[in-house]
């Protein structure tokens, strides 16, 4: 008899213990994201698609020093440098990147380029939707990587 009673209490305790978790979790905020129906959220330091930054005047920050390309372990950054002129000014310093490509077939999002950059010109953004049918489309050009002109700098 005592055995049956004991069994019932044990089961009730186990149930209560189990359901306590269920009920507790029921009251917690939802973490599952409803992607792609709702936009995903990111941690601030998430390393997504790169963004090439502009300064407060809308000039490109990158001076084509090639340090990011040198730091890159998968060798996916390709740069061609050129000289700024008074008539054709792209960055604030003497040189700028005429061509700046990142090959996302190869990029491993390690963030070394961002760490190497002496000008804070390259950062990781939060973009991640880069799947494509054609590997060529994964080579991003400067125009795709640049952040848009700030409203203050627009003519």
């Amino acid at each position, binding site marked *: 008899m005592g055995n049956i009673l004991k069994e019932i209490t044990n089961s009730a305790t186990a149930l209560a213990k189990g359901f306590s978790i269920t009920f507790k979790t029921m009251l917690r905020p939802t973490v599952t994201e409803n992607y792609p129906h709702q936009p995903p959220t990111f941690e601030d330091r998430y390393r997504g698609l790169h963004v090439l930054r502009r300064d407060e005047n809308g000039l490109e920050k990158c*001076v*084509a*020093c*090639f*340090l990011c*390309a*040198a730091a890159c372990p998968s060798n996916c950054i390709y740069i*061609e*440098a*050129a*000289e700024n002129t008074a008539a054709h000014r792209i960055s604030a*310093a*003497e*040189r700028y990147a005429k061509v700046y490509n990142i090959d996302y077939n190869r990029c491993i999002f390690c963030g070394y380029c961002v760490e190497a950059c*002496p*000008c804070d010109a390259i950062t990781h953004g939060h973009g991640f939707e880069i799947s494509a049918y054609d590997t060529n489309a994964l080579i991003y050009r400067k125009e795709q990587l640049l952040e848009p002109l700030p409203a203050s700098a627009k003519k």
Partner: protein
Amino acid sequence: MAEPIKLSIDGKPVTVPPGTLLIEAAKQVGIEVPSFCYYPGLSLQGACRMCLVAIEKMPKLQTACTTVVTNGMVVHTDTPEVANTRKSMLEFLLTNHPLDCPVCDKGGECELQDAVFRYGAAETRFLEGKLHEEEKKFSNLVYYDRPRCILCFRCIRVCDEGMDVNAYGIGFRAAHSEIIPNRGEQLECEECGMCIDICPVGALTSGTYRYKTRPWEVTYTGTICNHCGDGCRTTLSVRNNVVIRANNRDHSGLNGEFLCVKGRFGWDFVNSERRLKSPLLRKNGKQEEASWEEALTFTVERLKTILAEHGPGAVAVIGSNRTTNEEDYLLQRFARTVLGTNDIDHHRTADFSSLVRALTEAGATDRYATIEDISAAKSLLLIGNDPTHQHPLIAYQIRQAVRQHGARLYIVNSREIKLRRQSSQYLQVKPQGEAEAVRALAGQAPAAQDLCAGGTGALTALADALKKESDTVILFGDEIQGQTVNDLVTCGLTLPGKTRFVALGDYANSRGAADMGLLPDTLPGYQPLSNEKARERMESAWAAKIPAAPGRNIRSIFEGIRAGEIKALLVFGANPVKTFGLDNAALTGLQLLFVAELFRTETAELANVVVPAASFAEKSGTVTNTCGEVQALKRTMRQAGTRSDLEILLALARLFGQRWTYQSPEDVLREIIALVPGYDIPLPSLLVGRAVPTHPEGRPPALERPDLVFSSRDSLFTSGTLSRYSWALNSVDEAKKPYGHAF
């Protein structure tokens, strides 16, 4: 030899010859003493104080770059005091230095960057703002950024002592001191770019390289300059099939770090937009683009028809001063055995044949001087020519000989050439008087009273001075040719010691063209065509007949065309219309004019068929400099649509039904080594980038007429037809100065 000096550096015993500088002694035992202003070969400056070391029994730290070692010296480079001093010196240098390494062209190969990284503190204790000054454009090729300059004065010294141009000085005082051009706001100089090259920091930058790339982003290929006949070794920096700079920082090759303006900047013709990229075929009077196959088949069909109708005497070939030995060798094989004609020649710029014959007859074929012999010479005799313009490296080596170990330079010239500043005797003769002076020196003919400024007395003085010298190196230009070369050699060999000779030819492979037998009467290796044995040797190697009768020289080829006897002319890498000043009608009688060229030159414009040839950067092979030293070209890039002259020749031979088995330039080179007298050179030395001297021996026929050998008298800024297509060479104001201008 004086007793060697024994000293100790950081506890390591060192033994060096007396007079050695402490910094060099340290280098010998692998101890690095950082330095900026010290540069081997230049005068001592002691400006940067980077090399301070502790020497026992001396009260303060001493500069290792100016201290001469003495016996028993005990030196320390690793004390905390020395380390601290290095740090402080760097902090001083950085007082006004912008440290804008990310934009600075020198970043990655900067001596200051390296030094700060190793010895310095990147932090500064100065609170004051840095002085700033805008960058200055000294010329289209040289820019100066004052804030980056560390005032080591290397540029001033290399320009003054190395180049004898003295274009720079120092202006203003103290923190405002800066390098200024001595002749006004702009540089007026030889534009050699040695100052850019030697600048330890990014203060002097190159107009063609600046802001383009990074030193670790390019491929480096060591090859040979394609302009003058000196054969400087140069390292091309190539990115994406575009050459972006040339220098020789590793000091390899016979030129060390030297390059003149053509070698350092004049390679840009390779990248020119005007390069031919497709064969052109004349249809209905107009040159139109055609395929390679079409162009070559047309050429061969036309050649076959002409050969069938008029015989081999109706076909002539003109070779190049720039193509490789392999190409030249194949070209003459093609002409002699496939076309069956000896009417093959090139623009001869020095009389190499006569030099070889004279030395062979005198039994002195060990007397060809090398570039190294020139800089090591104790005594030099220069007859004719203006090396400053025509042979910048040789001029540099002559200056080195005079400056570094007091060599005596004797000059016989009709013009006031710049090298007379280095000469101990300068004999100015009347125009075209060089040959007469040589004949007089050789005692062949008495000199006319008006021959030289000082009367015949000056000539006697020169002869007397030469008799007191030994191991003289004699250099002569195109002024001395034919029999006079013979006189010069005979007379030179009577001088004391081991006299050596150099004939000064204009272009990168002028010597090779003669060596390889691009001559109507001479087989490769200066074997006369009339020598039956020599002919049979080649015939058996090639399994083909060579016509025994000597062919037409280049002047007779033009005469033959005018007379309508020659119906077809093949031109490889030459522009005879311009070089020989031919008029428009000169070539109109031809039924076939085939031109292989990089550009649409005056000759190419008249051609029925033009095929785009590869430039020196796009092919491998060997070239021989004017001293007879063979060096290897290395292919570093490709240019779509072009083919090397070697490939063109192989294709032509194939279309003629020949079964040549060469697969690569090396195959041809192996045959040259086996067959051409004087060219039995060790292949490995060549492949590791050495300059291998040759000692040709042969008795080629005497020079037929005096107008066959003539130099183009290129200036520092011209290089035959090529310089026209170089932006850099035309961009500098100095290029507009009259010929022979001394900077």
